């Protein structure tokens, strides 16, 4: 039994011309203690999926279907009060922009203490001690004297450490990290990722890491789910995604990584744009951009299906064995030199 | 969505209709008024309006303490309110626009001096300036226009200053500068036309404020001296007869609120037309 089991999650945004799908029947699982990378272009629905798990979708957004099973309960059918008891205690979240995610008029100490005061009955003194210990643990130097400073007085990297501290201060079982390093300098990115990895093994929590950056996935994730136009198109252990790619979109994403270790492969951005969610292709949503698409791809709805025990893809041509794995690049390899 | 579009149009039509009606009333006052507004008739003092049992259709809206016809005085009173309101807003707008654009475009000492002055004037309320001037030279229509105009320029200066600064950075203005255009030419040809819509909204809403201030000053006795028919004067006269003749103050109050509300509606409708997110902020 997985720690978190998401099935058929569907989230729409109400607009003047009717509801527009952002997440459409996404299913994936998160095992205890693992790091699952949820990867996709912006607009693929990966962040909306993450926010939907904690039911943090604001109107006009709305979750209209699916189940989010955690600890034997469906989070989507909990009463608001029960849901609040889960947030910050069992499942926490950190965000892309640490400055705008922190309350500018509260001291960082107060903000790290808040989850403890909400979820535990320890007094303020003890909460302060634990918050302080957590601030030290996430690598805030001299946290004692920084306890009463405000977010704007810290650097971007330290702010994200504060966010991590307030998310983990109640020692949750799951941390959802929504693009946690995107807004940071490259050197800081590596430090924050290393910190997350450290804390994960130390506290034994699972992490759902949302990112558009396959490089980040390669560094920290155990498993990967690739999202496209609101649907999961491939899910596999991290090594298999790179070595045994089973969906043309995943292959295109991998090809677009600017990576010195794969100089042989030409850097290509994925051609075209993600489809307009109001006018989705009827069959495979990637078909209009796919180099391997056949007429049947355009008309047939594709389903995420296991091709081996740990590896699933939504490409029917791969499922039928018509395409080799890993998916070959369409562009001819450039000669070395 | 559709609902607010309708609201915007309705506001502009309703507000515009009221404003046009009052302006026509002011222009054609001599034709519309059934009596001379200054004609005193001590035999017909304090006659209530027609809906009252003692009402008399000779004076549809009744008479005041001197037997003057309320309807005629209300019609004539619109003249002063409109003239002072519009003239004061125009003066404030012209002054504020020029100073604000100058500060925003040229920067340096002009910027510091103009914007500091605008800040400092906040500490010196309009009404204190009015009180000082009236204490010194007495009340007249021209003094009212000068006092209200001089105190109202800062709004425009701030708006124009901020907008001029942001427009200055845009490519078409930078292109004009690089082609050697003169400052005055750039302001006239490139910057000012961009600012006209905002200016219209601010000025419209300010006319409403100016009229309220004019009536307030008149009410306090700092406007035109009696017997001049102004809505503020009439309200002040009615105040002493609150018990016996409440219609004197209430009719003048209704006249003020209809006109000011109409202008506010028109201004808010225009603003929502320009910027749909704001509502009724002043």
């Amino acid at each position, binding site marked *: 039994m997985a720690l978190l089991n998401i099935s058929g999650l569907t989230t729409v945004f109400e607009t003047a011309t009717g509801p527009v799908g952002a997440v459409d029947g996404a299913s994936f699982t998160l095992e205890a203690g693992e790091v699952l990378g949820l990867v996709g272009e912006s607009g693929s629905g990966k962040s909306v999926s993450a926010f939907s798990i904690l039911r943090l979708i*604001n109107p006009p957004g709305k979750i209209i279907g699916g189940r989010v099973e955690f600890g034997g309960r469906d989070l989507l059918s909990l009463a608001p009060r029960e849901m*609040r*008891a889960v*947030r*910050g*205690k069992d499942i926490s979240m950190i*965000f892309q*922009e640490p400055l*705008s*995610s*922190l*309350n*500018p*008029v*509260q001291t960082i100490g107060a903000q790290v203490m*808040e*989850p403890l005061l*909400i979820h535990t009955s320890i007094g303020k003194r003890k909460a302060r001690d634990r918050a302080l210990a957590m601030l030290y643990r996430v690598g805030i130097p001299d946290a004692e004297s920084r306890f009463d400073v405000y977010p704007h*007085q810290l650097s971007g990297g330290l702010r994200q450490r504060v*966010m991590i501290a*307030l*998310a983990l201060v109640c020692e949750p079982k799951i941390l959802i990290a929504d693009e946690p390093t995107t807004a940071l300098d490259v050197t800081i990115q590596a430090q924050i990722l290393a910190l997350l990895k450290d804390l994960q093994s130390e506290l034994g929590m699972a992490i759902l890491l949302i990112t558009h950056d396959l490089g980040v996935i390669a560094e920290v994730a155990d498993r990967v789910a690739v999202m496209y136009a609101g649907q999961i198109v491939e899910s596999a252990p991290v090594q298999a995604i790179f070595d045994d790619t089973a969906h043309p979109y995943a292959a295109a994403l991998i090809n677009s990584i600017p990576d010195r270790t794969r100089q042989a492969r030409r850097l290509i951005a994925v051609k075209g744009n993600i489809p307009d969610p109001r006018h989705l292709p009827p069959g495979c949503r990637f078909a209009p951009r796919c180099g391997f698409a056949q007429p049947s791809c355009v008309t047939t709805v594709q389903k995420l299906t296991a091709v081996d025990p740990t590896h699933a893809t939504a490409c029917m041509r791969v499922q039928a064995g018509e395409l080799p794995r890993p998916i070959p690049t369409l562009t001819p390899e450039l000669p070395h030199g | 969505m559709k*609902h*607010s579009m309708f609201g915007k149009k309705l506001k502009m039509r309703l507000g515009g209709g009221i404003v046009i009606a009052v302006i026509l009333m002011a222009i054609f006052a001599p034709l519309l008024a059934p009596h001379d507004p200054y004609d005193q008739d001590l035999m017909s003092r304090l006659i209530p309006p027609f809906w009252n049992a003692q009402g008399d259709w000779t004076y549809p809206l009744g008479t005041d303490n001197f037997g003057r016809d309320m309807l005629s005085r209300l019609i004539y009173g619109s003249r002063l309110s409109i003239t002072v309101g519009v003239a004061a807003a125009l003066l404030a707008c012209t002054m504020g626009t020029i100073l604000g654009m100058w500060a925003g475009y040229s920067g340096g000492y002009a910027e510091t001096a103009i914007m500091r002055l605008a800040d400092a004037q*906040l*500490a*010196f*309320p309009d*009404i*204190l*300036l009015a*009180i*000082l*001037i009236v*204490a*010194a*030279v007495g009340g007249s229509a021209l003094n009212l226009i000068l006092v209200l105009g001089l105190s109202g320029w800062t709004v425009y200066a701030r708006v124009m200053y901020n907008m001029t600064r942001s427009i200055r950075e845009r490519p078409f203005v930078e292109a004009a500068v690089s082609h050697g255009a003169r400052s005055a030419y750039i302001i006239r040809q490139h910057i000012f036309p961009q600012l006209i819509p905002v200016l219209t909204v601010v000025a419209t809403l300010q006319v*409403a404020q100016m009229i*309220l201030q004019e*009536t*307030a000053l008149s*009410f*306090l*006795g*700092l406007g035109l001296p009696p017997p001049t028919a102004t809505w503020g004067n009439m*309200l002040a006269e*009615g*105040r002493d007869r*609150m*018990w016996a003749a409440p219609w004197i103050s*209430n009719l*003048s*109050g209704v006249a*003020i609120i209809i006109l*000011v509300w109409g202008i*506010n509606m028109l201004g*808010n409708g225009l603003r929502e037309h320009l910027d749909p997110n704001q*509502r*009724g*902020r002043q």
Partner: protein
Amino acid sequence: MFAFIVRRLLTIPITILLVVFVTFIVLRVTGDPVQIYLDINATPEQTALLRERLHLDEPLIVQFGLFLWDVLRGDFGMSLQFATPALPVVLGRLGATIQLVSVALLFAFVFGVAGGIVAALRKDRLPDFLLSALAVAGQSMPSFWLGILLIQTFALDLKWLPTSGTGSWQHLILPAVTLATFLLPNFILITRTTVLETRSELFLTTARSKGASESSIMFRHLLPNAINPVLSFLGLQMGRLVGGSIITETIFAWPGIGSLMIRSIFQRDVPVVIAAVFIVSIAIVLANLLVDILQSLIDPRMRLD
């Protein structure tokens, strides 16, 4: 924080200088000061005495210097109607005005902020339309007529409250409501706007992700961030507040500085008018300073040091 307050205090002399300058210009340049100060029946001796006292034969710059010196010593001359120094007359009325203004401000702030929050939370629904329409109607309402309507209704018809004057807390209700209504519409509209702007802030999502309740999100996270623009606006409204207070005091015969000022104008008691203008200007500067301090206490980013 301390340095911040000191720095703000340093701007006060500049403002005072400006007020004195404007007052001087208006009094000396718009006409013959002797005629402004004295009535038409003044004897030649009185005129000559005043000319000497005002140093009217000196150059303007010297006159300004002497005027400034008098003002700084608190010497505004003798009140013509009370035959005592003008400044104590004005200061004696200060308490009543502060009482009226602070009660009205409290009313307007509490109800305005509450109304603005309700309108924002029910955006584009009935409460929002009602409150917004009410606010625009309120902005169009001449406060002096509102005061008269309140007197007609609650004092003359219902006989619940006294018509005017001072003495008991009942006397304060109608003037305070009149003055509060003068400010209320703008408070509602500005609060509505800032709450709507703050509602989309990400840190509210963070608070929600911690498991905070909706009321805690509103009072601990949203309001402390939305209240500062409302306070800035309050600072900008001080001038209007003074205007409203003068009108309200006049309608209800409230014995404050405002009614004194109007009465002194008609008595041609120029020294009292100047002293009152001066005291009110200082009060506005101090009130703005208070707003600044309050804002920097709420929002640490405002502390400039």
